[in-house]
């Protein structure tokens, strides 16, 4: 029987590393019996889903760069301060 520490470990990594069948079954059994880990599982799914959405939204903006005008403005601001 998995401990909660082990179960949360497998839940955390299973989207990135395929779990062996034995581990998957052990995890299923643990989740059936443990409300805390079921909640952890739910939260983990929400976090992953939200971050995926964040990533997808950000990809649309990956071309954004600091404008040359803003860059010169920053430079002159810094220069003004260092001259003091």
């Amino acid at each position, binding site marked *: 029987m998995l*401990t*909660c*520490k*082990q179960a*949360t*470990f497998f*839940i*955390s*990594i299973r989207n*990135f*590393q395929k779990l062996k069948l034995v581990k998957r079954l052990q995890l299923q059994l643990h989740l059936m019996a*443990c*409300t*805390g*880990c*079921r*909640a*952890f599982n*739910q*939260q*983990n799914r*929400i*976090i*992953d*889903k*939200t*971050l*995926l*959405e*964040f*990533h997808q*939204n*950000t990809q649309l*903006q990956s071309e*954004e*760069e*600091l404008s040359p005008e*803003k*860059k010169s403005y*920053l*430079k002159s*601001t*810094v*220069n003004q*301060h*260092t001259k003091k």
Partner: protein
Amino acid sequence: MTYNQKYPCNPDIWVDQYSEEFFRFAMYRVKNREVAEDLIQETFLSALNSLDNFRHDCPEKSWLYNILRNKIIDHFRKKTNQEIKRSSMNPEIDDDTFYYQFFKKEGKGADRWNENAIPKNMDISPDQLMERDEFMQFLLLCLSLLPEMWEKVFTLKNIEDLSTPEICKELNISSSNLWTMIHRAKLQLRNCLEKRWQNK
């Protein structure tokens, strides 16, 4: 201006050397050009004002990055109307101390949840757009409170979607280190989120 042989500090080159990278870093997290630009500006100005306090004990880029990260945390803190205690800011602790915040240390129930740390299902309906956006801000706040290395790992894996070997190579860590960091990050993240989201 005093210079340290090992870690010099040269504000004259800051904008040219670092502004674009800092902009991308900020932009990725706050997703708003004006906000990102403001944060970069505040970072440089803040650094200039505290130049006398810079002990030259690390590369100036790390020092500046730290200031920027704190400005980003501040941004999310204001957006989510949350307080941040100093103790929750990026603590680096060993594995045992970390895990036993959440799990029982010994005895019959060893490695099971501590009573006071058991997760509860979060009350969030992912379909409601406004709530989802607000939730995202909370998540980004909690992400920015993770120790730097964990945040890096988490971002590379979950957000930039690099493969395990790529991340391990980039950070010079083993895959088992990586999984441990993700486990710890998830435990901390969901704890931070649950507390702040339930109490908002």
